[in-house]
């Protein structure tokens, strides 16, 4: 079976084989990391535009590196210095990007569904680089790649996602992907930060991290999104940290082969402590590296294949 999608919107709509295909392709792309000259000719002549309506360092840089290592021309549109500031609509901005000659656009926006709307509107490929609290597919895929590398397979794997599930697109993409590949997922956090009805996604819910920490194989620690918090969702950051923070004490009670993930950027001392980040069980640096591989794979997959003459020999 071969990839047929023009866009990457989320893990919700991907079939399990499509997820595996991205991971396999990403694994092959990792071969370039150990080379002196990190350059493949694959996307020569293609133009990629990054447009981020929300701040980002790692995702944007990661997309840029992925594009450049595959020889695409990469352009970053800075929203603050673009026509957006003159009041240009999202639609017109993106139509312009298409008209200028881009082949693929990676977009991040605070409103869920923006990439979907653009995917339908534009002929070029659209990659969701995070939309509101909805999905962040490339992050989900890089988490899956890291888990697969460290754990081998997903069947029966116990994964805890800890923190602010309500505001987290990373959590949603992780849940969709993990469930499709056969893992057991528990979401953990204060009840005010766990969306009502999340059980419908096939996950278990717990409000007590200490009840679960000793039995999980993977813990994915979410960033407490201080910029998205309304007042009153939890009493204090200090209390949150005490109840849901990943620290040395909690890690002592966890499995010896636990895998610790964090999408970054971390609020050190809040959801995770420095020594937990430095724990040998943490794969936070590998996640960043895998992010480049996954984005290379996604660019390769969405940009390839248009006509009908299959090549034999």
């Amino acid at each position, binding site marked *: 079976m071969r990839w047929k999608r023009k866009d990457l919107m989320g893990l919700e709509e991907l079939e399990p084989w499509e997820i595996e295909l991205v991971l396999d392709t990403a694994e*092959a792309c990792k*071969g370039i990391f150990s080379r002196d000259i990190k350059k493949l000719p694959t996307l020569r002549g293609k133009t990629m535009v990054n447009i981020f309506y929300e701040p980002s360092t790692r995702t944007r840089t990661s997309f840029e590196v992925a594009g450049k290592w*595959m020889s695409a021309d990469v352009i970053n549109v800075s929203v603050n210095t673009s026509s957006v500031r003159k009041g240009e609509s999202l639609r017109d901005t993106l139509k312009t990007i298409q008209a200028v000659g881009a082949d693929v656009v990676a977009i991040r926006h605070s409103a869920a569904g923006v990439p979907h709307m653009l995917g339908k509107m534009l002929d070029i490929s659209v990659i969701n680089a995070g939309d509101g609290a909805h999905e962040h597919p490339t992050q989900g895929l890089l988490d899956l790649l890291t888990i697969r590398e460290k754990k081998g397979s997903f069947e029966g794997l116990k994964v805890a996602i800890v923190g602010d599930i309500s505001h987290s697109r990373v959590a949603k993409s992780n849940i969709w992907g993990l469930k499709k590949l056969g893992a057991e997922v528990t979401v953990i956090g204060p009840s005010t930060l766990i969306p009502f009805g999340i059980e419908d996604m096939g996950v278990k819910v717990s409000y007590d991290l200490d009840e679960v920490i000793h039995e999980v194989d993977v813990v994915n620690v979410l960033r407490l999104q201080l910029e998205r918090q309304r007042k009153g969702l939890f009493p204090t950051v200090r209390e949150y940290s005490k109840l849901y923070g990943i620290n040395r004490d909690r890690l002592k009670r966890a499995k010896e082969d636990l895998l610790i993930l964090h999408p970054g950027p971390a609020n050190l001392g809040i959801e995770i402590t420095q020594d937990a980040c430095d724990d040998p069980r943490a794969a936070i640096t590998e996640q960043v590296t895998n992010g480049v591989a996954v984005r290379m794979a996604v660019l*390769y997959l969405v940009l*390839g*294949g248009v006509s009908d003459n299959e090549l034999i*020999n």
Partner: protein
Amino acid sequence: MKSNLKEKTVIMDADGMRRALSRIAHEIIEENQGIEDVVLVGIRTRGAPLAQRLAENIERIEGRKIPVGILDITLYRDDLTTIARQPLVGKTEIPFDVTGTKLILVDDVLYTGRTIRAALDGVIDLGRPKRVQLAVLIDRGHRELPIRADYVGKNVPTSRKEVIVVELKEIDGDERVIIAEKAN
């Protein structure tokens, strides 16, 4: 074999393949005056087991192992946007430095030469071999680029409508080369 292909003639059986590879192994040793600095790199998919077999033949003759690697050229293709079904990206596994080697690329069928062009790019990105040579099981003609093989198992004149199918026991279970025709 793919279901849309109709088998026409068997042009090489298991014995024929064994003899061809054995001859190529001798030719490689002769041409390179021994196996000093000689390395084999098979092009995925079917070049990989062929390179392995050539290496075993060479070891039998010379009594010494030579390095064998696998090259995946998918990311170096020039037809990424013109083929409907995207090729799967495989891993390149070349666990040695290619700089200074006499590197022999191994593939099953030489046709347009575009695969070899991509493979040359792929190899050169990894280092600077002293010399690159090409060994193929079948040369079917119809080159689109100025590329030729140094070692050929069998030259087979074909028409463009025909397809050469190489089956190897490691991948296909069977061991033969056939000429087939597209059914439709």
